[in-house]
């Protein structure tokens, strides 16, 4: 079989802000959906400072477990060329959020229905990252399932915690901070 060498990765740089983020990028849940949950957090660098120019991408299964995804995350207005927002019905499974000046990001989504242990795949891009980073957001209430997850089970307990979001007082709200380096460094993944 042909084996082509991959095109090398490069940093997203500092100037993607007018190109990649789109309105409603963090609104994966159809507007007004009763099962909407909120996931949010900060991205920190190795000095503990917030990263104000990171781009967080989310990819997950639909509530019914489907991993096939559907189009429409960045639906366009053919009249103005602008963004029309999501269609209010479909769940695309994809979100993209630029961090704010405090390094903070927020997404409203629906609970993933698959795989056996549900999680949201998280991909982090930023100035200074020559190659994006993958991590996963697991949910704290799934203690039994999480314990059986092959990735979580293989991790040192202290590091495992970095992949499990924290439930906040408001129902359906979860905190997931991402530390790129240093104390409490988030577990980042490679796929083979």
């Amino acid at each position, binding site marked *: 079989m042909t084996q082509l060498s991959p095109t090398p990765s490069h*940093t997203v740089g500092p100037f993607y802000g007018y190109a990649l983020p789109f309105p409603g990028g963090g609104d994966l849940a159809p507007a007004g959906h009763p099962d909407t949950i909120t996931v949010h957090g900060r991205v920190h660098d190795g000095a503990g400072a917030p990263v104000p120019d990171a781009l967080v991408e989310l990819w997950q299964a639909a509530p019914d477990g489907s991993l096939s995804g559907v189009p*429409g995350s960045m639906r366009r207005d053919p009249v103005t060329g602008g963004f029309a927002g999501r269609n209010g019905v479909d769940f695309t499974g994809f979100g993209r959020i630029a961090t704010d000046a405090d390094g903070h990001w927020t997404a409203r989504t629906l609970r993933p229905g*698959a795989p*056996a242990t549900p999680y949201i795949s998280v991909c982090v891009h930023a100035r*200074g990252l020559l190659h994006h980073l993958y991590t996963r957001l697991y949910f704290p209430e799934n203690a039994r399932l999480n314990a059986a997850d092959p990735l979580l089970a293989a991790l040192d307990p202290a590091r495992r915690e970095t992949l499990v979001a924290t439930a906040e007082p408001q129902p359906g709200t979860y905190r997931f901070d991402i530390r790129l380096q240093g104390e409490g460094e988030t577990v980042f993944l490679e*796929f*083979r």
Partner: protein
Amino acid sequence: MALTQADIDRELADSRAAYDKARADGAPAADHPARDFAPYRSSLLRHPKQPLVAVQGDPETVELHTPVFGHTDITDIDNDLTIQHQGEPLGERITVSGRLLDSGGRPVRGQLIELWQANAAGRYAHLRDQHPAPLDPNFTGVGRTLTGDDGSYSFTTIKPGAYPWRNHENAWRPAHLHFSLFGTAFTQRLITQMYFPGDPLFVYDPILQSVTDESARQRLVATYDHALSQPEWSLGYRWDIVLDGPSATWIEEGR
């Protein structure tokens, strides 16, 4: 004391020497830049120090599936960056065409490609780019397209200018286009930059030189293709993009 180009040149030479020695000692070729590439100063506090944790994929692995995009996500003129305003942008009109492939040479069909870039004067339409080059009211510098059944794509735009940045004293980025790609698995996600052949700034740029393997670096440089140039209209460049993987497990699934 200010960090000079000579300081960066020394660091780049050291990294190349270390890579050449590792290769001579039998290390595999490095297709991607190291995450902790010190000559690119922004990487210092932002790369993980713990090793990445390997995940063995199975068909239920979320990352072996991918977001999908369709004709609702783009408009018909998104791949022509020269007709998004009332007037035409200044600069050298170019077309950039190629194919999006996976490592097995298979085309990635119907997938989203996003492009962004500086204008002909080397300035981005971004508030944080305040260097003294003019903005162009007729150029934003954002394009999108969906690949064809053969993985093909094509953009019409203008050639961006080189621009200064503050990595070190007198640091200049060679002219480049930013590309964002999706594959058939989320693991194939790629953000990268395309360069133009023969740019004298290549050797001074710690971002391009973060790819320490010479042949890998060449894969970031488009080819001028006279057959793609259009008379009285535009100059043509060809650039094929190859995504990692997908994983062997996934290929066995017959997808």
